[in-house]
């Protein structure tokens, strides 16, 4: 009786986990946009999240502050060598330079070949045309001048509080009006801000990925080859294979040993002489991938371990 109940709760837990995973995958898929190239191949572009974009923006603003500070400091050092006239010229030059930094920082970097400001680049983002065409200079100018409306106007409204009665009410109303622009990216599926809307652009998440060594190519460290039966390989599916890939590429030895133990227990594998946790995992990874790819070629994708076909 208790056994049956335990199995039942375990099954319920498993189902929950599986559904959570499906939801996660669905959410990721919602961010994917397919771009069909003129060759007819489909590229998947991933829309960046609001958080990523905001983070990139903060980085850029910080960088602008540093730039402006350096400009002022540099000019002050030079001007300090002269008399009072030097300071006045320095003031003029600094103002012009600051104006350029403030208004053309984003445009300068986004018109460039990487189509991203340093902040965006740090987070793996870039600006792209929404229909997969060229990103024009005009689009970049339009999307960045509209930033005045989306960020600097609300900011100046925030600082204009402090009147009495009616004035405070007007400021609140203005703030409400501004909030529409500020929060706009949260309420559309492409996470577009008004500038993107007008310029026909979007911001995508396209970090650089390095090509790592194929795990399946690593030579076994010991003499004997670990072999698995088809039943042992059919225990897991593609999801588990990908998790195993992550484990092999990124985790610590302790985790690898743990995972190796659990897999060995689950598939009923008895360790052979000279076998280590790593060599076992690599061998199992290779075997599993081989088996799953073979099945996939026949149109049979085993998504995860619950997928029993």
């Amino acid at each position, binding site marked *: 009786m208790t056994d049956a109940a335990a199995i039942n709760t375990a099954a319920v837990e498993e189902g929950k986990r599986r559904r959570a995973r499906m939801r996660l995958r669905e959410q990721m898929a919602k961010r994917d946009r397919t771009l069909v190239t003129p060759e007819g191949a489909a590229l998947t572009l991933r829309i960046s999240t609001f958080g990523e974009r905001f983070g990139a923006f903060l980085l850029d603003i910080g960088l602008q502050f540093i730039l402006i500070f350096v400009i002022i400091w540099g000019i002050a050092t030079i001007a300090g060598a002269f008399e009072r006239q030097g300071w006045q010229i320095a003031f*003029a030059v600094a103002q012009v330079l600051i104006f350029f930094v403030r208004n053309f920082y984003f445009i300068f970097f986004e018109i460039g070949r990487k189509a991203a400001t340093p902040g965006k680049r740090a987070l793996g983002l870039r600006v792209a045309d929404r229909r997969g065409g060229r990103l024009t200079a005009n*689009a970049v100018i339009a999307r960045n001048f509209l930033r005045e409306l989306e960020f600097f106007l609300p900011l100046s409204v925030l600082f204009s509080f402090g009147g009495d009665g009616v004035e405070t009410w007007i400021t609140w109303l203005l703030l409400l009006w501004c909030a529409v622009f500020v929060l706009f990216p949260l309420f559309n599926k492409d996470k577009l801000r008004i500038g993107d809307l007008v310029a026909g652009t979007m911001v995508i998440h396209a970090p650089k990925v390095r090509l790592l060594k194929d795990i399946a190519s690593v030579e076994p460290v010991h003499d004997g080859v670990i072999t698995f039966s088809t039943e042992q390989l059919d225990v897991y599916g593609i999801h588990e294979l990908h998790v195993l890939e992550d484990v092999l590429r990124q985790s610590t030895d302790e985790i690898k040993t743990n995972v190796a133990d659990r897999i060995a227990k689950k598939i009923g594998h008895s360790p052979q002489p000279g076998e280590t946790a790593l060599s076992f995992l690599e061998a199992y990874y290779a075997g599993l991938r081989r088996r799953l790819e073979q099945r996939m070629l026949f149109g049979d994708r085993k998504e995860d371990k619950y997928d029993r076909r």
Partner: protein
Amino acid sequence: MSDRVMKSYRFREEREADWAKLEHIVKRAENKGVGGLSDAEISDLPHLYRQAVSSLSVARNISLDQNVVAYLETLCARAYFFVYGTRARMSERIAQFFSRDWPAAVSAARGPTLLAFLCLFGGALLAFFLTLNDNEWYWTLHGGWDSRNPNATYDELRATLYTEDRDIVDMLGAFAAQLFSHNSGIAIFAFALGFAFGIPTAVLLIYNGVYIGSFYAVFWQKGLAYELTGWLFIHGVTELFAIILAGAAGFMIGGAVAFPGRKSRMQSMRDSGEKAAMVIIGAVIMLFIAALLEGFGRQLINIDEVRYSIAGTSLVFWLGYFYIPRRGEVDRRD
């Protein structure tokens, strides 16, 4: 060992070198531009790119190695953006902007320009007559901080129009810079606010007009209108024209949002956004010229006739530049 070799592994082994080559070329191109590539690399690029794209679609179907698929996905995207991306050099693009794109965009926007003109000068005329009838209006429209108010004497007002002391050239530089930042701010706002159906743009233009109009009335009453006009329009032709064009850019977007016609609203907004961006960046350039005229020209030139002739010349120049039709050239927009 042979039983460990799988299809996806062999697939990768055969193509890996080419992927790396493509990655190398794309990286160089991203850092140094097309100029940084050798002839051999340029001729290799299309074929390597197509190969990578086809590798990607094969890999999606036969490989379960996440890393390979993710790598190809980003490599292809980067190569795609480069292969189908912008080609023209910066200098060419700038030359084309001045020779064709800018005047074409401005002359295509005659309607919005006229509307912006009416807002600005309508506001100015209204404020001018109101203030002329009753000086109280001046105080309603301006703050109390300006010394150029109805209570100022003829001499005080006249002194603000001419610069006696020309020893302060360096201060003028600062003056130019300050005005430049301020006016460009207004212009960019006039553009950005256009998004809300153009209404805030109209308000901003009328407000600026009202400011000028009431100011003008003060000088008019003291018989200084002729002198003020020279003082104002030596740079004002360029500056007000720029603000009108910025407002026009705002109206273009506002109009596209309000009346998309047969296009979808998104499409219409995007089409007009492209054109409006050209008008607005041009307006910022004009404001730069205006600030130079204001900071240096006006302070150095104190003769009314010369001021008038500069104002007239700049008006003729801008009108001719924008509205005289020119022969079409090859379209190399990108």
